[in-house]
């Protein structure tokens, strides 16, 4: 009972669950069904994870307008499961669409940490990649990857909505490879437009 948040039931249900889980685990392992199931279920969850990319509704600068434009009739990113949510708790993708100033570096890291795993970060536009036109500025970080690990880079100033949709496509391809791997084992970042 060290953590009151975990055990609020009067009886210790976790021990029972552990026991049942162990028995089931052994039996599944013995019949090789476990491997069978994990491959199939893994595929299924992978599909679900990559088809449903909820994006944090975070508008920093110019690219935020293109992010909005990608949701309108002409481009309509919702076709590909890209839906914008306002709360970081319900988002999968942090779309950094602008320069990170010193004042915003702390909040953006906090937003990233508020998002539940598995989560992905897309750096959209030159400012988020390297500081862009403001690389010399006294108040701008040299890219968001100095504070957050980035999965996909979308160059452009700003990138067109097509490029953004392509970036989400590349992120999905990457999710096929890495799955929902939390933390490490994320692999190299992908760059849109790179041959």
């Amino acid at each position: 009972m060290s953590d009151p948040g975990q055990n609020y039931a009067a009886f210790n249900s976790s021990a029972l669950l552990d026991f049942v889980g162990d028995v089931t685990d052994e039996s599944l392992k013995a019949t090789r069904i476990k491997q069978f199931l994990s491959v199939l279920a893994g595929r299924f969850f992978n599909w679900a994870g990559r088809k449903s990319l909820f994006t944090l509704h975070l508008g920093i600068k110019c690219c935020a307008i293109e992010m909005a434009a990608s949701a309108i009739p002409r481009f309509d990113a919702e076709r590909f499961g890209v839906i914008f949510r306002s709360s970081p708790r319900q988002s999968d993708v942090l779309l950094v669409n602008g320069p990170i100033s010193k004042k915003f570096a702390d909040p953006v890291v906090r937003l990233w940490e508020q998002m539940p795993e598995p989560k992905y970060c897309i750096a959209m536009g030159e400012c988020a990649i390297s500081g862009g036109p403001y690389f010399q500025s006294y108040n701008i970080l040299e890219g968001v990857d100095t504070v957050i690990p980035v999965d996909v880079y979308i160059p452009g100033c700003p990138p067109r909505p097509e490029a953004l949709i392509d970036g989400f496509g590349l992120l999905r391809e990457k999710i096929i490879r890495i799955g929902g791997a939390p933390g490490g084992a994320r692999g190299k970042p992908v760059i849109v437009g790179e041959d």
Partner: protein
Amino acid sequence: MAQMWITMGPQHPMTHGLWTLRVKVDGETVVDAEAELGYIHRGVEKIAEARDFTQVTPYCDRLCYVSAMTWSSSYIYAAEDLLEVEVPERAEYIRCIAAECQRIASHLMWLGAYGPDVGNLTIMTWALREREMFLDLLQELGGSRMHYNYPRVGGVTRDIPPGWSDRLIAKTKLFEKRIDEYEMLLDESTIFLVRLQGVGYATAEDMVEAGVSGPNVRASGVNYDVRWTHPYSVYDELDWEPAVEKPTSVKGSDCYDRYRVRMEEMRMSCRIILDAIEKIPGGRNTTYANGDEMILAKAPTRAPEGATGFSNYECTRGASQFYIQGGGDGRGKNPYRLSIRSPMFITIPFVAETMIGYKVADIPAIMGSFDPCIGETDR
């Protein structure tokens, strides 16, 4: 219930950008509010001191990402004042048309962002759908969707492409009908009127005293517009008048007035475009080569020591002003000091005061009605 401070932002759907509004609420009523800026301060004024006059233009495009054309034009007028350049008439006409296209696109972006603020997503998709039409037109001029880098010191980069004027006229006339469609969706809805009317009062004199300008002041029944008090382009030759809304209360304009004035301003921009494209010198169906003297005048690259340039320009959100002191590094090739006056930088603290006394649910309605843009605010 005790009073409490709520921090809205920097990541918040209401903010239309990256800033923080701290409101003190008593239940649902706002008692105190203050704005916190600087989340995307990029130091453009400092960077510009290491760029020559042509290189500054892209930074001015990126000052306000919703109305790039007007901001770079504003800078160009200041640079021309500094460098003493005479601009060809045709270039002025093209700049005027491009700026009005940009004004429509910017107001459409505002309308699209205002819809979710008051709870309607449909108007967002509709407004941004029509915005694409004007972005396409501007893209043909400048080559990019958002940051055109189109005006040059002494004129414009390229002439209008062949067939562009026909497309412009067709799209403008189509768009005039689409404005009626928006009004059918919004003005006919009692909920829209109930949400906006009687909310967010501000009088004209208060706004001018606090430094607010542009459509927000014109919504309170005053037709003060830089385009006719200090005509800068060809606005003195065109048939137009500033859009004004009559406020119904002695307390000044409310959110609905500010909504109406922007809708009327889009109509007025259509009128300016249709008038200007017919009056353009050299004909609307001719295309001059790049650098032709009809569209681009020779401009010096070095500013005289001690000279200053100033421009006062009616941007989409108010008067944007540039003040340049010449003679910096590179013996006059760079601005020594570039100072930018952003209309929203002064408006946002004023809006924060305006909210006091209204409900929490009115915050996005009031804030959105002033059309904040944080790119120009933080510079």
